[in-house]
């Protein structure tokens, strides 16, 4: 069955992958362009990378985005793992359906609604209890935690339900306390999945424009917000250079994740 792949499927696959990669390749090629025009080739040059290196607003925004990404992905990994644990190990408890729905709903919510709801929450909280006094990095992080927790819960839960529970049961039978069972038995087994979930959450956070724009205040401008405002003004090869760096970093990250995954499979 496998060898007999029709010409139609082969063509569809070639077309699909070309569709996915031609725009990215063109982006990369023009990042090495000498000319200021993004779409006309004027010779090879690395000058846009140099310009990027000296562009303080972009670098500053990139640092802020990394910070937001690391903090919110880490918080979401903790909350999401707890949620997945409750969903996969506690059997049926009262309100389980509502709990599951609450943890997965942000994934299928349009971003503008998530952003607006986060902003109105912060404004109302400020009116009621005076906190948060000003919107900025902290409010972006909190708004991101909602969306990222949903993704982490899905990944962690699928790993937890796949996992063989007999080791946990054996440890419990031998008198280990649930807390210890989690740290000694469960956590080491789901660690690669959690790492993948953290990476996924991190990339979603540093990529987000819409939620961050709503939740942010004056002074806290993340990288997507800078790129968006630059894009509205027109194309600049500096963005191509930035994009090429992002693609290179992501490709390396994916390759690492694939290696981790393969190691994890062989351990099983």
């Amino acid at each position, binding site marked *: 069955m496998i060898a007999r792949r029709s010409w139609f499927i082969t063509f*569809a696959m070639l077309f699909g992958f070309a569709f996915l990669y031609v*725009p*990215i390749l063109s982006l990369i090629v023009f990042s090495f362009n000498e000319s200021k025009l993004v779409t006309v080739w004027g010779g090879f040059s690395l000058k846009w990378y140099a310009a990027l290196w000296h562009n303080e607003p972009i670098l500053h925004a990139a640092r802020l985005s990394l910070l937001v990404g690391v903090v919110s992905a880490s918080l979401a990994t903790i909350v999401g793992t707890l949620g997945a644990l409750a969903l996969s190990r506690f059997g049926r408890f009262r309100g389980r359906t509502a709990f599951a729905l609450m943890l997965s709903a942000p994934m299928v919510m349009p*971003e503008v*609604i998530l952003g607006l709801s986060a902003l109105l*929450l912060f404004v109302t909280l400020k009116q009621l209890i005076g906190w948060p006094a000003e919107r900025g990095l902290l409010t972006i992080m909190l708004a991101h935690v909602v969306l990222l927790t949903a993704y982490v819960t899905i990944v962690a839960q699928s790993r937890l339900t796949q996992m063989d529970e007999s080791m946990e049961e054996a440890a419990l039978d031998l008198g280990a306390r649930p807390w210890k069972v989690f740290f000694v038995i469960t956590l080491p087994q789901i660690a690669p999945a959690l790492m993948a979930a953290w990476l996924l959450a991190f990339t979603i956070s540093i990529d987000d424009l819409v939620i961050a724009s709503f939740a942010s205040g004056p002074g806290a401008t993340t990288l997507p917000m800078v790129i968006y405002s630059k*894009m509205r003004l027109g194309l600049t090869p500096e*963005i191509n250079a930035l994009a090429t760096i992002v693609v290179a970093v992501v490709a390396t990250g994916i390759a690492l994740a694939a290696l981790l995954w393969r190691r994890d499979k062989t351990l099983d």
Partner: protein
Amino acid sequence: MNNWPQMWAQFFRGLYRSLSVLGREIQGKRGRAVVIGVPLLTMGLLFVLPFVIILRISFSESELAQPPYSSLWQWLEGGYLTIKLNFSNYLLLWQDALYLGAYLNSIKVAALSTLFTLLIGYPLSYGIARSNKRWRLALLMLIILPFWTSFLIRIYAWIGLLNSTGVINNLLLYLGVIDQPLALIRTDFAVYLGIVYCYLPFMVLPLVANLMRLDDTLLEAAADLGCRPMAAFFKVTLPLSMPGIAAGCLLVFIPAVGEFVIPDLLGGPDSVMIGHTLWTEFFTNNDWPLAASVAVAMLAFIVLPTLAFEHIQDRRARST
């Protein structure tokens, strides 16, 4: 100070000990309460509560104040509480052709681009699911890779291709196919293209997961009984992959309906989508109550019906 590894080891041992002491304190019932409670509180406070607030603000009036909306209730003298619900935002949504048009247009654009995504994604997923194990992982990684690069950057790439001085127009002019640059960007076509491009992985991943589980013996049985491959596909493979199709379409349709970035950067001025309207009401017109009612209407009339439909489909698929 030169013995870092040992210091770290000691640090982690200490951390583990204190955690396990803490853990012993909150064992049993209380431990359970923590495991359920932390996500419950986080999502309750940051996700569910805001919807109540959105609903509340959608009934207030826009005001020149900080924050720019009126309060719903007021204490009058003598302890009377008055509650003023203002339905004018919803009336405006219903009566003004701009908003209704934006809703309908969003549904149309999202539905059509979901269909296009399925048409491109299905054969692609089929090919990936049917390839051998070694290739499959690599091909899946190739699908995921663009998804992990920035969303904005992928749209930026298309602007570079579609512009009137862009790569496609330059190429066609050079080849002599056209003598005037085509208007590719700022059209509906560009919006469809952008959505299909950005959401293709969301369609492919559930489909591949579904098609990989397809039992080959069913197709062999169909072939043995004289069924042609094409007919076997429509009678066996396609019906069995319905749950994957439904999941993929849901993951594309819902975010596409509320999409802001793609219509903003690739779309033309006359095809307005509702996510874009919400953004404009909020950021440009500073009308928070109207933005809130746009969000409530989007939830009530687009997101919730789609989720309910998906839920029913899912249950039906499981029962058969």
